[in-house]
């Protein structure tokens, strides 16, 4: 027997009754034709990709009883990340990652580009929101004991996501290239340099050499807008796959009502 996929929860009132023989005049309205065209287009894609099975598996899986608002924090983090990605693309259209022009291009974004300060503000404050959300989400999974069997791996992936998110904030802070970001970053890179074993290499890698130089900025930019977001997106995919695969936990205080037979089944 092949595994049964969950079906969409359509209330009975909304399901259209099958046509009886002799009912209707046999002619199709424009709407029917439209619906049919849509259905056959979707079928065409599904025949070649089999996407619908995965979608049904992801969207119509059951979420345990008692799931509350705390369970929205993970997807809220993801949403904040998406907002960062979109505003980041618009900033990248105007930003120039060179020591001589970075400041000037940021000034242009802030003072002249249409809605520039608004988009830059969204990106800047969005980072704060994302960091808060990721910490609260982590606290939720911690206090609910959601990192325990069988979800250990999802916790580990989560910690990597946390480190990557902090890396985003750190590398992004330098980019406006004003006094504050410059000096804070120098100190930050120096602090990294005191790390065990890899510390000095990490600092050299970040600076693109032993000195804070002209290529440092473009290196931070590449890390900030390609390397780390790519890794975050990939790991988010893995994280979500595991959530769907294993199911979200029920709140720990909710009891499963077992039948009498099972309840006496103690060793």
């Amino acid at each position, binding site marked *: 027997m092949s595994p049964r996929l969950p079906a969409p929860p359509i209330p009975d009132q909304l399901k259209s009754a099958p046509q009886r023989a002799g009912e209707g005049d046999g002619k199709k309205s424009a709407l029917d034709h439209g619906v049919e065209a849509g259905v056959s287009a979707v079928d065409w894609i599904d025949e070649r990709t089999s996407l619908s099975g995965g979608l049904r598996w992801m969207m119509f899986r059951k979420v*345990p009883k008692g799931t509350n608002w705390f*369970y929205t924090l993970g997807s809220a983090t993801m949403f904040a990340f998406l907002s960062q990605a979109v505003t980041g693309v618009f900033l990248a259209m105007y930003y120039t990652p060179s020591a001589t022009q970075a400041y000037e291009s940021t000034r242009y974004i802030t003072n002249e580009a249409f809605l520039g300060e608004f988009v830059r503000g969204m990106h800047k404050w969005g980072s704060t929101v994302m960091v808060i959300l990721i910490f609260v989400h982590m606290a939720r999974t911690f*206090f609910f004991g959601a990192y325990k069997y069988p979800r250990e791996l999802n916790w580990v992936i989560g910690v990597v996501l946390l480190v990557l998110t902090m890396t985003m904030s750190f590398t992004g802070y330098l980019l406006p290239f004003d006094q504050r970001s410059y000096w804070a970053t120098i100190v930050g890179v120096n*602090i990294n340099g005191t790390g065990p074993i890899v510390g000095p290499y990490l600092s050299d890698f970040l600076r693109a050499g032993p000195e804070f130089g002209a290529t440092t900025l473009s290196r931070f930019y590449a890390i900030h807008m390609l390397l780390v977001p790519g890794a975050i997106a990939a790991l988010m995919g893995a994280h979500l796959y595991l959530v769907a695969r294993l*199911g979200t936990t029920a709140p720990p205080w909710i009891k499963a009502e077992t039948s009498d037979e099972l309840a006496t089944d103690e*060793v």
Partner: protein
Amino acid sequence: MNRREKEEYLRKYSILKNKGKPFFPYAVGKDAAMACVVMIAIILMSLTFGAELGPKADPTTTTYVPRPEWYFFFLFELLRVIKPANFTPLATIGIPTICLILLFLLPFYDRNPERRPLRRPIATTAGILTIAAIAYLTYLGASAGSPTQIELKTPARYEAGALVAAQSGCLACHKFGENGNSGPGPNLSHIGARLPKQAIARTLINPTSPMPSYKDLPPEKFNELVNFLAQLK
């Protein structure tokens, strides 16, 4: 968790899951409502606080106290709390690295099958204490302010050097008399008695982490700074 506990968990979970509701539309609806809250929060913050841009980065004038983004305050504060210089590596790498490793391995050493927060007193207390510590360190970092004044009694011909020191962010990590922070760097009120002038100059050019190098200061400012430090006895 042993095998029996694992099986018991999976069995109870499948009962709860089967009694649940489909992800779409119930959970998706909540998630979407939350996404709207997040979006509105970001937009409101952007509109109220905007995006400031300070003066352009300039390696030769350091008129800024190095200050990280606020959510790194607790790491920077950790440096400050663990003051003695030989312990700095412990604060910078030791503690954060150990905390990170502990965080990574959490599911592997906490093998208690219990999940209710009140029935896991150690884990719950540790979690609350960690949050309190981070909150406290962040608060310390936020209230540290950015001092830019040195009130030590200075002979008139060294005033210029005192000004350079005050404007160069030294106070973020060093104490001069009553001013500045008492960590992560050592107190400099009597540095001249401890270090000869050349050694001070060498430290400024080639310092130990996390202190930044000040070799790009214009030469006359650099000399004023060194002269000022050398006479602090």
